[in-house]
């Protein structure tokens, strides 16, 4: 997992210069701040700019990344951005399927917990991990198709949590907590009390996380149409204007939905209900495994 950072070359700090062409895409944060800008820098080459932090030059053809930080940028923040934002986008540009999803190991396989920021992926992953069910990642889930199975790939052994989630779910057992300079969240390192799985596992189920409007834990199967349209919106795609890339992602997602059961999962976002949510998922996955239809 950490080998990925070997592809990162850190350059000397420099002021972020204006780019000749306008960005083809922007990310705006929930509080309406510009978080990232995306520029084309040549055939299959891109510049991802995080204002006030650094510029990342990436290619869709090879894994090497150059980062040009601004003066004073924290190295740990750059690595964090690379692993959690830049690398998933680079993988997507190379044709991989990367979901906005966490994943945990259940019954020897992985389940995906899919949803945009704020849907509770990290909290649910941390809740599983703190109860002894290892997590593979809390976001940026890369899926590799091998022998007809989608394998969930492990990612960095950290979970990003808001302070209240950290206290409620992990409590005092967190061995190491790292700040994230551009977010109010903190990163918690995996430990004996917060288990991480470092093995790629075949994916067995996909759960799309609802908005927390349910009054109790609810799971319902999604039709193929529902699953595809929801998953498309939760996929990392670097160049959304490239028809070839979009077609490839569409086929990836269609293939995933044709092979795996997809469900909508919603529950009230109350910490005391997380054990019930976990148990519901555990029972569901185990019962399907014991009684294949």
């Amino acid at each position: 997992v950490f080998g990925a950072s070997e592809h990162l070359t850190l350059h000397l700090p420099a002021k972020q210069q204006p780019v000749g062409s306008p960005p083809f895409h922007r990310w705006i944060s929930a509080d309406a701040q510009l978080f990232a800008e995306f520029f084309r820098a040549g055939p299959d080459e891109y510049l991802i700019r995080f204002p006030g932090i650094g510029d990342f030059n990436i290619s869709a053809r090879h894994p090497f990344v150059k980062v040009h930080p601004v003066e004073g940028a924290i190295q740990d923040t750059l690595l964090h951005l690379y692993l959690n934002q830049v690398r998933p986008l680079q993988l997507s540009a190379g044709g991989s399927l990367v979901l906005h999803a966490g994943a945990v190991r259940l019954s020897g396989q992985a389940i995906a917990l899919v949803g945009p920021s704020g849907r509770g992926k990290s909290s649910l992953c941390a809740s599983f991990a703190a109860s002894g069910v290892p997590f593979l990642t809390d976001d940026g889930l890369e899926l590799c198709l091998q022998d007809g199975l989608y394998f969930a790939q492990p990612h960095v052994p950290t979970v990003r949590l808001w302070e209240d989630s950290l206290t409620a779910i992990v409590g005092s057992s967190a061995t190491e907590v790292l700040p994230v300079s551009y977010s109010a969240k903190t990163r918690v390192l995996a430990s004996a009390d917060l288990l991480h799985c470092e093995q790629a596992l075949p994916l067995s189920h996909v759960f799309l996380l609802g908005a927390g409007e349910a009054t109790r834990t609810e799971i319902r199967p999604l039709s193929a149409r529902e699953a595809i349209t929801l998953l498309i919106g939760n996929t990392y795609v670097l160049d959304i204007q490239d028809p070839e890339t979009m077609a490839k992602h569409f086929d990836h997602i269609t293939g995933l939905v044709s092979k795996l059961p997809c469900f909508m999962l919603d529950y009230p976002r109350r910490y005391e209900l997380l054990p019930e949510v976990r148990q519901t998922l555990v029972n569901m996955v185990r019962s399907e495994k014991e009684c294949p239809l």
Partner: protein
Amino acid sequence: MSPVNLYGQVVVVPNVIARDLGGETVLLNLKTGTYFGLDSVGARLWSLIQSGSTIAAMSDALASEFDAEPSVIESDIKRLLTDMAAQGLVSLPE
């Protein structure tokens, strides 16, 4: 809803691709990133669009296959096609 020509062809916009799964269809406009899900009836309509049917012919075909008033079917087809046109997935006859 503005008047729709029943006797001209509905044309799929270039760069729109479709995938069928479990009797349903999902459309994606590769240029705009717009995607659109069709249930089983919508999927049947999509197959008629691809075969070059006019709206009148689509209405006749669906009326023979589904238990609903022809006027209701025609109205529903017009509404769905207008919606799909607004999403940049098809162009309607003038």
